[in-house]
């Protein structure tokens, strides 16, 4: 039964919460010095995190999962496989099973991690990438598996010309033509974005 109050469907994997709250350096020491402790805490926390969303989510809803610290900008693929992916996978599977679509906010370098998403049920999540990940290679790897979203770079929005923006958007439109792709900015549109470039992005599919 759903609760009668609203809770925003925004969450983060335990791995990412610990990485941010411990600080990156300390957390890396924890992974090397106390791997079982970190894994046990992730294991204990993950069902609680999932259940918080289940309190108010219903079939057809989307839930945002902020998982930037699980990227290769911070950890190795080996660390991802052992410490981050098992619990991220648990979250994606739990939401997917209930008809809730996870949107993984995946800032940072994700290319070395994307092969793991091929192992998830097809079309079980949306992966929102910024420009640290090569979107062409990401599309090649995940086409037919997962939907990806991205990734007009912040530097083009801020410092590029309309022509630069249009050229990048044309590339994104090309990638989107056979589905499983959402065109958007890489992460948020930056405060110093040129309005004319934002207009090009917003109108590029018309």
């Amino acid at each position, binding site marked *: 039964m759903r609760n009668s*109050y*609203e*809770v*925003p*469907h*925004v969450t*983060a994997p*335990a791995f990412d*919460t*610990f990485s*941010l*709250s*411990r*600080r*990156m350096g*300390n957390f890396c020491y*924890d992974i090397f010095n*106390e791997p079982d*402790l*970190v894994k*046990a*805490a992730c294991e*204990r*926390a993950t069902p*609680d*995190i999932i259940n*918080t969303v289940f309190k*108010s*989510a219903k079939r057809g*809803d*989307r*839930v*945002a999962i*902020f998982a930037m610290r699980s990227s290769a900008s911070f950890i190795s693929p080996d660390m991802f496989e052992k410490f981050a992916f098992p619990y991220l996978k648990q979250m994606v599977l739990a939401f997917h099973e209930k008809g809730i679509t996870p*949107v993984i906010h995946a800032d940072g370098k994700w290319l070395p991690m994307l092969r793991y998403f091929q192992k998830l049920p097809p079309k079980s999540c949306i992966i929102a990438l910024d420009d640290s990940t090569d979107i062409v290679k990401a599309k090649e790897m995940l086409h037919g598996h997962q939907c990806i979203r991205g990734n007009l770079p912040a530097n083009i929005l801020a410092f590029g010309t309309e022509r630069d923006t249009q050229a990048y958007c044309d590339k994104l439109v090309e990638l989107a033509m056979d589905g499983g792709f*959402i065109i*958007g*900015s890489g*992460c*948020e*549109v*930056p*405060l110093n*974005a040129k*309005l004319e470039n*934002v*207009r090009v992005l*917003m*109108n590029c*599919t018309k």
Partner: protein
Amino acid sequence: MIVTYAAVPAEKTQADIFKSNKHWLHALIKCYEVIGCAPDIVFPMNPKDVTFIEQMKVRLPDKDLGDNELFQLIEEEIMTQADYKIIIDNGFAAWQIPFVASIQNPPIKQNKLTALRITLKFIQVGMRVGKNQKYWNKCEIPMKFHT
């Protein structure tokens, strides 16, 4: 995705859009008017609530920063190694409440009412997302996530 950028085309400061959900939503609507194009999908949470759910210490415009500066997340050790054991023994939710209270700006006092106050804050964030959701639903524009 547009959250804080909404202030720029709407000719508001970051401090303005941090005042309330209403201020931010008005700025976001104005932003799309100035761009001259409706969004395909919207991020339905105002930036002040984003700083609450980030679960990190934060510096805010108008309070700790200049009026038109972007909010900043502060990475420091706010969870100790001993906290892993607390989570394993008591669960994530039991750990999260005092943790969230301690990182607020200013911190929320730890007493019998702490859990209630933090839970209420989460519900209020959910209600504000719900209000924004209702607005965009009327415009038939989907949300990145729901409440």
